[in-house]
């Protein structure tokens, strides 16, 4: 064992550089620069804490791995996730101890960010400081002496600009010169101090940092006289005039804006306006884009059939694979748009304020202001939303957020609502449909909050942990969003969705195709007096009516009867396991929609109007059953990808199973009440 370790140590390995920094210190921007955005994201073994690892871009000609870890405030962990991040920093389970640590330090918040630097140096790490956000520091009227800062800290200090990449070359030169300096044999120790000593050592560190800050920061205007006046000198002068008013203040513009944007009433009004604009914008822009994607895949699928004929493999490719890929990609416009807007809001500094504004109401029901962004993302897709809950440090609040995210009205529900609303309301007055859609959204938000407040009473059981609830959030300075950075991040989120949800949706789509195509794949039908396309559609319908899927549908029919549905709706509901919007295309199949090529929605609507419950002349789709279906879609946990991601993020099957049973149960009961209640009232 001992010799094994020795061999491992002496074996030449690729040097490891770890990137460390506080949240909002420009760490990820720097990482993207160094890695060329070509990295893989991995979980720490047995945890949900994620890190990204990459080779440094070859153009920088340094052979080293660079590791980006979650932002930390200090080396003293405040949550289980932070504990993992910090102990992995000392000794990563796979890569060992870093040969070099680059710490990003926001120069406009020097003293707060130097705390981490001091802790790292004191722990014995080989540290290089990358100073960021100098533009904001300049705006405040200050400048900084890197040389002096380096001397006082005892490490190398380099300025970098994440926007332009200025300074990166210099940083890498310093990396190259110092990576071999790994102080071999030097103890790297985890700080484990008792509570009272911890406070003392922290205050001591801050005292040292304050004296450093006073030395290295100087007023920019004073440079005009060719004589830099540092903060210490300014203080000396100012103390006389105005004692106690001499500190580095936040960006004045941000403070001014916050007096309005965080105002008791104006702030709330602004928040409402921002949210309304966000959602209106997303829906207006997304729906035509989603239509284009949809039409593109329908077109491709038609071509596939015409090339390969109506064979099983032609059908597999057109119905199984092309439509499957289509159902993954059709949500991309909405997801991309939502993340684009979220990214712009985040980069401008507003999103943190939004989280602050909703913290109080959310904390009443066991959530946190930090639940706000995941919940908002849930309106695009639950998968990236659930991953975004990692910023919530309290486990109980994080689990509760994950619990209710699937109730947010994700983009896959939209086509279903659109169809059912078109069925319920006359096309002459489209505004009624608009109101109905808004009402559905408000209803889904309200019910998710009610469910959260009820579950909150039991949520210690859900997470097995009741930590202390806290909301300490830095509100970054307002600034013009960096569009290219936001676009990169948006694409990243979109890729995460495609990678995580894509395969599941695609496989399920192929399985569903199999279930709807076999065993009776070439049924005999009466072809007299029918056009080719009608024959094709009737063959499809006959095939599905005698397929495994219909067997399944008939199997669950007894459960569907009480809520006014039959096996055909059942087949479509089974199909929604892949993605909710598949409901629409699968209704088209099961209801023998024959006018293909024309406006598909109108032909489905016509078929829906004519459909009767088998064996009777009672209409299947009535106001009551359509309203019931909407209610069902608001609540039911139908998405396999969501179940998979909840399992992964919570580390057990407990939560997804509870969600599946509870949400689908609620959906069923409420649909039952809606359908039968409306019928009792005479609405049909």
């Amino acid at each position, binding site marked *: 064992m001992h010799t094994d370790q020795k061999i491992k140590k002496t074996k030449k390995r690729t040097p490891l550089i770890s990137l460390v920094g506080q949240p909002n210190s420009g760490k990820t921007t720097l990482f993207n620069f160094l890695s060329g955005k070509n990295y893989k994201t991995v979980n720490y073994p047995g945890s949900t804490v994620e890190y990204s690892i990459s080779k440094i871009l070859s153009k920088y000609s340094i052979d080293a791995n660079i590791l980006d870890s979650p932002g930390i*405030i*200090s080396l*003293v962990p*405040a949550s289980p996730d932070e504990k993992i991040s910090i102990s992995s920093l000392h000794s990563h389970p796979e890569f060992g101890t870093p040969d070099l640590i680059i710490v990003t330090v926001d120069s*406009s*918040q*020097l*003293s*707060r960010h130097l*705390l981490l630097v001091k802790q790292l140096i004191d722990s014995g790490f080989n540290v290089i400081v990358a100073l960021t956000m100098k533009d904001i520091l300049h705006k*405040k009227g200050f400048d900084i002496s890197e040389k002096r800062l380096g001397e006082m800290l005892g490490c190398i200090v380099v300025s970098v600009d994440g926007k332009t990449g200025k300074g990166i070359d210099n940083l890498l030169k310093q990396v190259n010169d110092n990576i071999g300096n790994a102080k071999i044999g030097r103890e790297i120790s985890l700080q484990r101090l008792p*509570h*009272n000593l*911890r*406070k003392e050592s*922290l*205050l001591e560190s*801050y005292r040292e940092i304050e004296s450093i800050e006073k030395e290295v920061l100087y007023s920019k205007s004073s440079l005009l006289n060719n004589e830099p006046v540092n903060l210490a000198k300014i203080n000396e002068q100012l103390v006389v005039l105005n004692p*106690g*008013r001499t*500190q*580095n*203040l*936040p960006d004045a513009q*941000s*403070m001014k804006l*916050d*007096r309005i944007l*965080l*105002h*008791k*009433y104006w*702030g*709330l009004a602004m928040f409402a306006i921002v949210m309304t604009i966000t959602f209106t914008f997303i829906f207006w822009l997304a729906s035509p884009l989603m239509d284009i994607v949809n039409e593109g895949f329908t077109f491709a699928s038609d071509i596939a059939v015409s090339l390969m004929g109506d064979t099983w493999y032609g059908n597999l490719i057109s119905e199984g694979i092309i439509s499957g890929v289509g159902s993954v990609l059709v949500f991309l416009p909405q997801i991309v748009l939502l993340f684009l807007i979220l990214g712009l809001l985040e980069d401008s500094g507003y999103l*943190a304020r939004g989280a*602050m*504004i909703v*913290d*109080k109401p959310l*904390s009443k029901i066991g959530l946190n*202001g930090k639940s706000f962004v995941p919940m908002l993302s849930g309106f695009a897709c639950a998968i990236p939303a659930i991953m975004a809950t990692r910023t919530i440090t309290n486990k109980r609040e994080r689990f509760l957020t994950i619990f209710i995210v699937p109730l947010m009205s994700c983009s896959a529900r939209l086509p279903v609502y659109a169809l059912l609303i078109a069925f319920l309301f006359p096309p002459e007055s489209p505004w009624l449909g608009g109101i109905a859609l808004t009402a559905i959204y408000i209803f889904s938000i309200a019910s998710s909050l009610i469910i959260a407040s009820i579950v909150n009473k039991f949520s210690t059981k859900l997470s097995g942990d009741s930590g*202390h609830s*806290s*909301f*300490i*959030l*830095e*509100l970054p*300075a307002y600034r013009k969003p960096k569009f290219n950075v936001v676009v990169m991040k948006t694409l990243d989120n979109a890729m995460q969705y495609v990678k995580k949800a894509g395969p599941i949706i695609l496989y399920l789509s192929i399985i569903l195709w199999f279930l709807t195509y076999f065993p009776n794949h070439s049924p005999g039908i009466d072809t007299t007096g029918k056009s080719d396309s009608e024959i094709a559609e009737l063959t499809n319908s006959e095939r599905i009516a005698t397929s495994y899927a219909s067997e399944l549908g008939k199997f669950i029919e007894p459960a569907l009867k009480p809520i006014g549905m039959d096996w055909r709706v059942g087949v479509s509901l089974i199909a929604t396991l892949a993605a909710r919007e598949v409901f629409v295309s699968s209704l088209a199949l099961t209801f023998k929609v024959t006018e293909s090529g024309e406006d598909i929605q109108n032909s489905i609507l016509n078929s829906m109007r004519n459909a009767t419950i088998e064996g009777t002349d009672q209409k299947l789709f009535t106001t009551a059953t359509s309203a019931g279906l909407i209610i069902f879609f608001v609540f039911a946990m139908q998405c396999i990808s969501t179940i998979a991601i909840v399992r992964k993020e919570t580390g057990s099957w407990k939560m997804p199973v509870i969600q599946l049973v509870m949400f689908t149960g609620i959906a069923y009961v409420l649909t039952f009440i809606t359908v039968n209640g409306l019928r009792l009232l005479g609405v049909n």
Partner: protein
Amino acid sequence: MKTAAELKPGEKAIVKDVDNDHPSSHRLLEVGFTPGQEIEYISGAVFGDPMAFSIRGSIVAIRKNEASCILIKK
């Protein structure tokens, strides 16, 4: 003893100490609320909770409950 939770918007004060018994006390010190620092209560969300303070050149939002463990002098 006056605490940061009692400040009015626009009011400034000097941090005197942070109550060790509060579970957030260490994190508050870490984000910069250390004795001797000047803070300003900038604005609060509805019901004045959470509260946004200027501290060490940054704006940091904390819950009212957390502000009440920051002891101040004017």
